[in-house]
């Protein structure tokens, strides 16, 4: 359950003030599938950063699952990110020196889970994403699609309620892109809220709800 009210975000670029978000309000119920679309510079990434608690709004409030998360301090926001939000990035953001296995296990490791407990969970995830025989490969030994699958496995290993994907197919060829989207949609069917930022209309059309952003405002929401 997401509730944004009157979110403003202003960046100072040189002498100029850039309004990345202007009075953005939106709600999303659990299990929704939303595509945030719009031209570059329209504020869709800024919105995603606010939703992911990576950035704070200058004003407005953000409620996630009944908690006013915009009021929380850095530590508590980190805890929410850890447990409720999974990120999928355009450039995968895998740690290049770690194997696929360790990359997926990273969130568990950082949250303090013991190795023995991690083992089973990561192995299951690897199998579920068709990476069972890629466990000991490092990112540079994987194809683009495999890398994004590792990234998705990592994003879901903590069983978050929301997945935020920023151009998840932007760096993949068509087939790999479709494969990745289907995986994300499958996760959405398991009641995980899926929010995808994209400027690819074809990808946007797949979502049940499209939010169009222009110049920092929500122009259209259907």
């Amino acid at each position, binding site marked *: 359950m997401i509730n944004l009210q009157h979110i403003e975000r202003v960046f100072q670029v040189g002498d100029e003030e850039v309004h990345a978000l202007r009075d953005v309000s939106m709600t999303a119920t659990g299990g929704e599938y939303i595509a945030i679309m719009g031209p570059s510079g329209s504020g869709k990434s800024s919105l995603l950063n606010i939703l992911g608690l*990576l950035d704070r709004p200058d004003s407005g409030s953000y409620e996630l699952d009944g908690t006013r998360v915009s009021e929380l301090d*850095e530590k508590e926001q*980190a805890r929410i990110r*850890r447990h409720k939000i999974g990120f999928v990035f355009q450039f995968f*953001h895998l*740690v290049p020196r*770690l194997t696929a296995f360790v990359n997926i296990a990273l969130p568990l490791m950082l949250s303090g889970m013991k190795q023995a407990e991690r083992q089973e969970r990561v192995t299951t995830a690897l199998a579920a994403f068709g990476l069972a025989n890629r466990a000991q490969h490092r990112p540079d030994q994987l194809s683009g699609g495999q890398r994004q699958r590792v990234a998705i496995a990592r994003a879901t290993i903590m069983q978050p309620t929301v997945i935020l994907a920023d151009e998840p197919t932007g760096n993949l060829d068509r087939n790999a892109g479709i494969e990745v989207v289907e995986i994300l949609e499958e996760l959405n069917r398991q009641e995980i809220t899926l929010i995808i930022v994209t400027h690819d209309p074809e990808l946007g059309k797949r979502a049940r709800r499209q939010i169009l952003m222009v110049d920092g405002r929500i122009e259209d929401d259907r």
Partner: protein
Amino acid sequence: MQIQDFFRYTFNGIRAQRLRSFLTALGIAVGIGAVVLLTSLGEGLHHFVLGEFTQFGTNLIAINPGKITTHGVSGALLSNVRPLTLEDSASLKQLPQILDVVSVVQGNGAIEAGTHQRRATIYGVDASAARVWKFGVAAGRFLPDDPPRSARSFVVLGSKVRKELFGNNQALGERIRIGGELFRVIGSMKSKGQMLGFDLDDAVYIPAAKAMALFNRESLMEIDLLHSAGSSSSAVAEKVKKALQARHGKEDFTITTQEKMLEILGGVLNTLTIAVGALGGISLLVGGVGILTIMSITVNERTGEIGLLRAMGVERNQILVLFLGEAVILAAIGGLAGLVIGVCGSWLFSLIVPALPAHISWVYVASAELLAAFVGLLAGVLPARRAAGLHPVEALRAE
């Protein structure tokens, strides 16, 4: 985060850049190696010098004529100073806790045995000298315990004099001339070696009264006292001072306790050790700068990773600890390698220069390793703070 995972993660970061990490750790290794090696040499010198001084025993008190004051001329040059006499020496022997007394007169003279002649140091001493100074007799015996004023004309030879004058021949019972007077050889000493440049083997030992006559002196140059091991040097020195003051009417002599001398000497040598250690510390500092540089580069390279970690819910402080940990571990590895270098180096040094054995002080070794970790910590603070201060959105954009 589990502690083993913390180590796994940081080690992984270090291993990922093998050559770079190796070179950085090497910088610290050289620094720690230098600290360990130099302090070992300093400690070795310390032990060596103290050994030289304590070879005469540690419960010694020396009395010299004349009061040394902080200003003016030494009292020894003034005519109204009562010199130290054999009687002073005898009276001090009566004091409690005083085990032995040696009256000392020293000079140079020609020593003739048959056709051989040699100039050597002549010590006028008492029978107690061998005990007090811890001399070993090689053959025969040391001077007999004759009444001081009527001691017989006996001489004991230092090992070098014995060798020069008699070679492999029997010296015991032979008569030799010292400053024209005849003395009978009753013993020869074991080699005692040099003591700060004075060759104690190139000397002969005759009764103090005979030496006074030989050098035409009325008084002694020094009185050495050996006190019992259990008693405090300063307390005994105080008693000696009172007793001698009562005899002389005023304090016209100087008392030096071995303890005090060793204390001062030890202090000087410790300072020396610390000073050379600090020299090594400079190279450690350079190693620290190396870590600072590499960690800054690492933070730059891993900006994207830092953004990812933040996105995954890692707190700012955890980022700080991760990068600090990497710097400390890198420095600690270098430190360990440095310990090996330092210890092997001092061992090698001991092999090459056995006279001045390097002495490895494990306290210094342990503090050197701690120092290495501390240098790593210091060097890591700046880059780690930068890493922790990165805005997650900015950091994620870096890749």
